[in-house]
């Protein structure tokens, strides 16, 4: 995973070798790409084409049942852009993405630093616990979470109610939208911190003792060492992790959908993923859903454009 960030640089370093092969085996790279390209064409070719075409069509339940779908030009897109609900949800998604990704990164990095500093036995205890959390399938995660916050028998409400003067028995966490997204953010953070912590920890183990000793000989304080020595070394790892968290948290679908299944549904509880799903599968506005999907793709691309452009550029230079 972490390698993805390093890819451009690594490629850059070894690239001199490449041109030599070009003349020798011009067909080999194409042959190597055949299975991957075939997979993409078979699995995505038709659906993506369908989606692009239907984003310009009036396509609802009636069309699904055989009515001809008419081209309506940019109408779906215009409807979408003038719909305050869509923008509210888009903003909410971006906020949710930023919050969750930063929280995950913050906790993950802190845990990695902690793992570096503590005795081996306690590190292993922590790693095993996090591995368990990481291994929980999403549906199981959400089912268990729903049981933990069950309004009547949930252990969370029980423990909170032990605090004198607090009565949380019967409190439903999934009705108030803020509380709903708080729960979602907590679960997603809980589940994604292990990956960040393990990756950053793996990065930290590569910071050699000599470097650290040299730093302390030079009179650097702990925080200075962290800031000026450690962070620069693991920076590429951090960048790629952050990018991945951002992409994943913007696209989050399964967790929100499952939480809606358990609790309240409706646009107040939607992020972009569930919104598109609701438009299409729920309300049978397939044309609109296709248009929304295209817009979300553009949005994701816009957010990560800096990184993508950088990567392509480095790639070309190499």
């Amino acid at each position, binding site marked *: 995973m972490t390698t993805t960030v390093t890819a451009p640089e690594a490629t850059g370093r070894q690239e001199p070798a490449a041109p030599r092969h070009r003349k020798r085996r011009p067909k080999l790279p194409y042959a190597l790409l055949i299975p991957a390209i075939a997979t993409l064409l078979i699995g995505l070719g038709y659906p993506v084409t369908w989606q692009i075409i239907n984003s310009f069509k009036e396509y609802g*339940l*009636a069309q699904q049942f055989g009515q001809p779908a008419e081209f309506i030009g940019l109408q779906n897109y215009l409807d979408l852009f003038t719909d305050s609900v869509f923008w509210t949800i888009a903003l909410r998604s971006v906020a949710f993405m930023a919050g969750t990704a930063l929280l995950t990164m913050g906790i993950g990095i802190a845990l990695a630093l902690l793992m570096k500093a503590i005795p081996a036995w306690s590190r292993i205890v922590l790693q095993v616990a996090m591995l368990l959390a990481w291994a929980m399938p999403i549906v199981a995660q959400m089912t268990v979470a729903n049981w933990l916050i069950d309004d009547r028998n949930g252990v969370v409400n029980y423990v909170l109610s032990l605090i004198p003067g607090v009565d949380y028995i019967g409190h*439903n966490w999934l009705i108030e939208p803020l509380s709903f997204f708080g729960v979602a953010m907590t679960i997603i953070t809980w589940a994604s911190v292990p990956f960040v912590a393990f990756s950053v920890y793996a990065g930290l183990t590569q910071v050699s003792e000599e470097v650290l000793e040299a730093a302390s000989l030079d009179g650097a304080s702990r925080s200075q060492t962290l800031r000026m020595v450690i962070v620069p070394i693991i920076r590429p790892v951090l960048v790629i992790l952050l990018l991945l968290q951002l992409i994943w948290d913007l696209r989050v679908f399964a967790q929100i959908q499952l939480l809606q299944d358990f609790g309240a*549904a*409706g646009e107040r*509880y939607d992020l972009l993923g569930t919104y598109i799903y609701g438009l299409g599968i729920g*309300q049978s506005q397939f044309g609109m859903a296709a248009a929304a999907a295209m817009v979300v793709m553009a949005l994701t691309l816009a957010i990560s454009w800096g990184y993508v452009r950088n990567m392509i550029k480095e790639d070309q230079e190499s």
Partner: protein
Amino acid sequence: MKKTMIGATAFAAAGAIALAGCSTASDSGSDSSPAASDTAAAAEDITLWLAGTDTPEALIEYLKTEYTDVNGGSLTVEQIGWGDLISSLTTALPDSENTPDVAEVGNTQAATFTTVGAFMDLTDHYEELGGDSLLPGFVEAGSIGDSVYALPYYFGSRAVFYRQDIYEAAGVEVPTTLAEYTEVNKKMLDEGVGGAYLAGRDWRSAISWIFANGGDIAEYDGSEWHATLDSPEAIAGVEQWQELFETGNVAQPTDDDTTTYSAINDDFLSGTPASSTLAPSWATWTLGDFDEETEGYVWNSETFGVYALPGVDGGAAPVFAGGSNIGVSAATQHVDGALDLMEIIFSDEYQTMLAENGMGPANLDFADTYIENSTFEGVNEIAFEAASNAKLTPAAAGWASVEEAGIMEDFFQAVAEGGDVTKLAVEANAKIDELING
């Protein structure tokens, strides 16, 4: 749909007699009867989609055996979870290669699929399958004009389940008007013995107040549906519900219908249990005293009781009827088999079995059996009474979308939180109007 029928007829006319297996169409649908298909000897393997696990295993087995006896082919039954039902029907029903031949659909979703032509026209078979004995409200939900597409499968209704002991302790009688229901609950709550438990987001219960006051969710003006939550009748109903909620109710505005029904059991709420709740008739097996041995709840007629929600001027209020419809896919390639199955479903035997298993039979001729087979005394009679003047949600193409969007839940929660009913009704109307016409 027409295309399929014509194709099927042509196929039959071509003299393709010895057709068997899955991709056969053997006969034109219009004149099929068990006798006809027997002579045609065209055994067809068909698929039935049932919603969730509501239909008991024994009934499914019966359908399978009976179908093989009648048709010779085999019947495959898939249970599609309620949560996946709409998406699965949306994708599969138009697809003649993969469509279920017969499919159950929630009664409030029936109109949506009927309007787009997902189901085959059953008007010619209507009499055979029960005719006017079939539950009228549900038939209407599955009809367009005079043509019938989706028939009732089973119904359930809502009734007030209450605690006799609490009513006695508070010295109150079973109310006879809707206003009295509020008063009685206010009195009990004031005396600290537990009020009603009506969840703020349980709109399926709350709309009974709109219906009882003569209002409706939406009306059809001949070309389009318009939400009518702001009609004087509807507003009166919602305000009456709001008063009950604020003065005689122990549930929270944010509660939903997942917890409602057990609130009158002991030990469910901290403190005293709720004195009554409005629950579907099939909720009975979750109500009663906890039984250590079976780890389930057992109805105890000493402490528990049931009555129909009273109307504004007495009698029973028209409550919301739950249940489902069933129809033959318009894209089916096995019209005969599907019709054979429909005949089995609407046969006396199967309707009796439904009734005996506590599901309101589609055919009201079997109401007596249903009433006799109450899981405990009287509840099915009350449920039946309520169902006979029960109302459904609008039979509009877009109603399923309205439900999907959670508009009704949000509306009643806001009302329960003490909001201005007229203002909220106008807002909810606008949201419903956007979706209800599909």
